[in-house]
Each structure stands twice: as structure tokens, then as C-alpha cells.
């Protein structure tokens, strides 16, 4: 468990470094939901977004097959859960203008009041949702 905390700190540090590089190099905020939304516009000026997304996929592969001490657990296919979760995340991040990275990592770094309120809000509803699904309804992710 404590080892996980150190790896969490390391992972967080790398994510912070990534956000620093994107802001210092490209002048852009490393908010993944915003990057995806912009990438879907598919205009020429937005090509950098696809490079970031490609890097994100590559980084996951590099970790899993090159760096990880143990494989990341995999779970059964749960299409309904994923569709419901994905739709709410897509709708909510577009409406609220950011996700864990944009509002969390970058917005808090910018000392943005909007981002602080967003982070407190999505953490709170996340906590409540898991309490309801796991403890009131007795569901797990299957």
C-alpha cells in the first residue's frame, strides 16, 4: 500500500511535468477532455492534439509492457456500465469545461477558482456515486 503511494507521487509528478512541457512548449493546457473535444474538430491547426492523444496511448503501452512491476488487472467486459459512465463523463466535462486533468492538475496549478469549485464538485459526486452503487445498491464493476 505505502509503495503504491510513492508510485502515485511519482506518477503525479510525471503528469505535472507533462502539463509543464505542454504549457511551456505549446502554450496549451493539458486538459484531456478539452484536447479530445478540440481534436474532433479536426482542423489543420489541431493536429498537435492527435500527437498528444497518440503519446497518451503510447505512454500507457510503454508503462504496461516496459516499466510495470506487475500487470494492470483486467476486468470483464461491461458495455452498459461503460456506455453510461462514458456518456456522463463526456456530457459533464463538455458542460463543465474540464476533467481531472484540466480542472484538477492544470486549473489548480493556475489557482483558478472555477477549477477549485469543479474539483470539489466532481469529487463529491464521485464519492456519493460510489457510496450509492457499492453500499446502497451492492453493485461492483463487472
Amino acid at each position, binding site marked *: 500500500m505505502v509503495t503504491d503511494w510513492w508510485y502515485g507521487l511519482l506518477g*503525479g509528478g510525471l*503528469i505535472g511535468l507533462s502539463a509543464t512541457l505542454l504549457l511551456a512548449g505549446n502554450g496549451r493546457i493539458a486538459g484531456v477532455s478539452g484536447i479530445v473535444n478540440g481534436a474532433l474538430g479536426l482542423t489543420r491547426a489541431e493536429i498537435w492534439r492527435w500527437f498528444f492523444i497518440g503519446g497518451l496511448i503510447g*505512454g500507457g503501452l510503454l508503462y504496461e509492457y516496459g516499466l510495470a512491476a506487475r500487470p494492470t488487472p483486467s476486468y470483464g467486459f461491461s458495455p452498459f456500465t461503460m456506455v453510461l459512465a462514458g456518456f456522463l463523463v463526456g456530457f459533464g466535462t463538455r458542460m463543465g469545461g474540464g476533467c481531472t486533468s484540466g480542472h484538477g492538475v492544470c486549473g489548480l496549478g493556475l489557482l483558478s477558482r472555477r477549477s477549485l469549485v469543479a474539483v470539489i464538485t466532481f469529487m463529491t459526486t464521485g464519492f456519493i456515486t460510489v457510496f450509492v452503487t457499492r*453500499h446502497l445498491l451492492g453493485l461492483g464493476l463487472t
Partner: protein
Amino acid sequence: MTIKPTHGSALVAGLLFGVGLGYAQMIDPQKVLRFLDLAGPWDPTLAFVMGGAVLVTLISFRWVLGRPRPLLDSQFYLPTRHHLDRPLLIGAALFGIGWGIGGYCPGPAIAALGLGSPNPAVFLLAMVAGSLTYRWLRDR
């Protein structure tokens, strides 16, 4: 398509982000749900992830934004809205519900695309549908 320096820096930033999400174990949705499960055997790892990331950006962003412009572009593209409004609150609340149901937020779902499970791909297709649905409702 012309490859520009900004494409290279975006690729490296994406790689760092993906490896970071790996070490953070956010590519494991159950790890995320164990953090969100305050009433269960709570796993605080994600607080260290967020803490580590924000510790870096709090210091580095100040330094970066003290420069006249980024290294590879002519301007910084920063958020323009500063006031609190209803869409921010409702949107963040809905996002949190979706996060609590699936254990994925956008970054980890993309970083987990190559790990063999179809779950992140289905999540991302639905995420794009949700985003387009909001845009359609807003612009209607």
C-alpha cells in the same frame, strides 16, 4: 501534413502523461473506485497522484507564465472564463457521477486503450457521444 516542433512536444507530453497515469495506477478503474469509496477500505493513492501533479504545476506554471510566450508558439492559450456559473457546477457534478460509475476519466481511458480490454474503447465512444450531445443541446 507538415510535422512541426509543437507536434513533437505534444507527443512527448502525451507519453509522459500516459506513463504517469500508469505509475499512478489510474489505468486500473478499480484502483480509482477504491479511492472514491470512502466507506470501504479506502485507498488514498489518488490523493498522492493529484498532490504530486499539483505540487509541480503550482511551481512550474508560475515560472512558465512569467515568460513572454511559449517556446514553440506565439501565445499562451489560457481559460478565458473566470466566474462561477451553473454549467460549471452541473457539468462537474455529472462528470463525477460518470467517474464514480466507471472508474475512468478521459486521460486514463485513453492511456488504457492498448491494454487489451474493450472497456476503455466503449467508454471513449460513449464519452464522445456525450460531448457531442451536450454541444447539440447547447447550440439548438
